[in-house]
């Protein structure tokens, strides 16, 4: 057999699925930023874990075979080794074991008064690297930053997510929230069209989840590697033919704060495994 096989799914079914999504959704009158307490438009939050096949769930649950653990192990090594003899390692300030990081990832992104910016875990790690280790920041999506953020996030596994959105964090939150409900791209779809109004439906061999950030950095079978939440967000932007931001961009950190607030009560399950 020598036909040009297209790997299973047909382009046709994909188009139909996307058009169906576009047609099925109207913009709800919600999600507009305001000074009052924001409301979550989801009734019940569900982790992306619930939308994976049994085999994928089993891989995530296996503390040995979960491939994300390779990054956690590497992160632990980097935690103890600063890479330069003159500078302290992460562990010389934060302790050998990483216990001091327990719960930290569950309350990030967080506003940082010193830099007057919103920092996610990756940003916080790079901040320490620059300020406390006199080293240049790791590139976003570099093996090192993925490893350290997986190591830090893993310390919070099983802990409920709860981010702080009041005070100076609020402006960042508001812009993340607006972004979530804005239509964009040539498909003219907002995040919530897929991740709230069509949850559970199939799109291109994928079952649409609620778009929760709880498992990141996550090992995606499709990527065959660990990737950050922002890498996933870039996919979602390009998926509707919208211009993605670069990973680590402030727009994505704001969106991450909104997503994490929206996920409150769910437990951190990084490193997750996704199809």
């Amino acid at each position, binding site marked *: 057999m020598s036909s040009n*096989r297209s*790997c299973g799914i047909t*382009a046709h079914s994909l*188009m139909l699925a*996307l058009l169906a999504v576009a047609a099925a959704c109207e913009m709800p009158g919600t999600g507009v930023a305001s000074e009052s307490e924001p409301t979550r438009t989801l009734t019940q939050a569900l982790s992306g874990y619930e939308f994976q096949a049994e085999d*994928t769930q*089993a891989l995530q649950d296996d503390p040995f075979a979960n491939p994300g653990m390779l990054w956690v192990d590497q992160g632990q090594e980097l935690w103890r080794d600063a890479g330069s003899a003159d500078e302290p390692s992460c562990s010389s300030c934060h302790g050998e074991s990483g216990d001091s990081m327990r719960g930290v990832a569950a309350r990030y992104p967080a506003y940082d008064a010193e830099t007057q910016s919103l920092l996610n875990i990756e940003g916080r790690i790079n901040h320490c690297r620059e300020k406390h280790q006199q080293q240049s920041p790791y590139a976003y999506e570099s093996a090192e930053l993925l490893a350290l953020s997986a190591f830090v996030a893993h310390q919070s596994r099983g802990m409920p997510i709860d981010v702080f959105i009041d005070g100076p964090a609020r402006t960042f939150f508001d812009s993340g929230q607006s972004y979530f409900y804005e239509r964009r791209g040539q498909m003219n779809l907002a995040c919530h069209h897929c991740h709230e109004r069509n949850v559970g439906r199939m799109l291109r061999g994928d079952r649409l989840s609620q778009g929760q950030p709880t498992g990141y950095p996550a090992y995606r079978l499709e990527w065959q590697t660990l990737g950050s939440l922002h890498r996933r967000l870039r996919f979602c932007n390009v998926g509707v*033919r919208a211009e*993605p931001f670069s990973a680590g961009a402030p727009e994505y950190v704001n969106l991450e704060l909104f997503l994490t607030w929206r996920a409150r009560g769910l437990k951190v399950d990084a490193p997750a495994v996704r*199809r």
Partner: protein
Amino acid sequence: MITRRDWLTGAAAITGYSLLPMPLSATPADMQKAMRQAFGDSPISTGRVALTLPALAENGNSVRLSVAVDSPMTEKDHVEFIQLFAEANPLPDIARFELVALSGRAEIETRIRLAAEQRVVAVAGMNDGSLWSGSASIVVTIAACLEGLI
């Protein structure tokens, strides 16, 4: 006229996922050939080999596979190797595992790539020279060849 190729390119642009055609993939006949190359004309009996795959894989990039061979694993009577073949991957060979009596139990597990819905075959070679085989079929939702562009 819109060709199939155009459809694919268009969809790739829309979704940001490239739908590159697979390189010419193996066929059941290629698999037979690979098995002949490995075992010559020695007869292969069906049985004693249990190959387990999930009935459905949501992504062909990583599919759990296990093989258990019915053998006492003694010096006198044991499995010497287990070899895996895929019917519709770009290459029919998947892996070859060598065991010894010291293995104690003729069971292995790994994770493999599968490019399409297909049958996977395990052939076990015993120390008496006999060959045994078992197989399993699987449906793959997303084959192991879609590649994200970012």
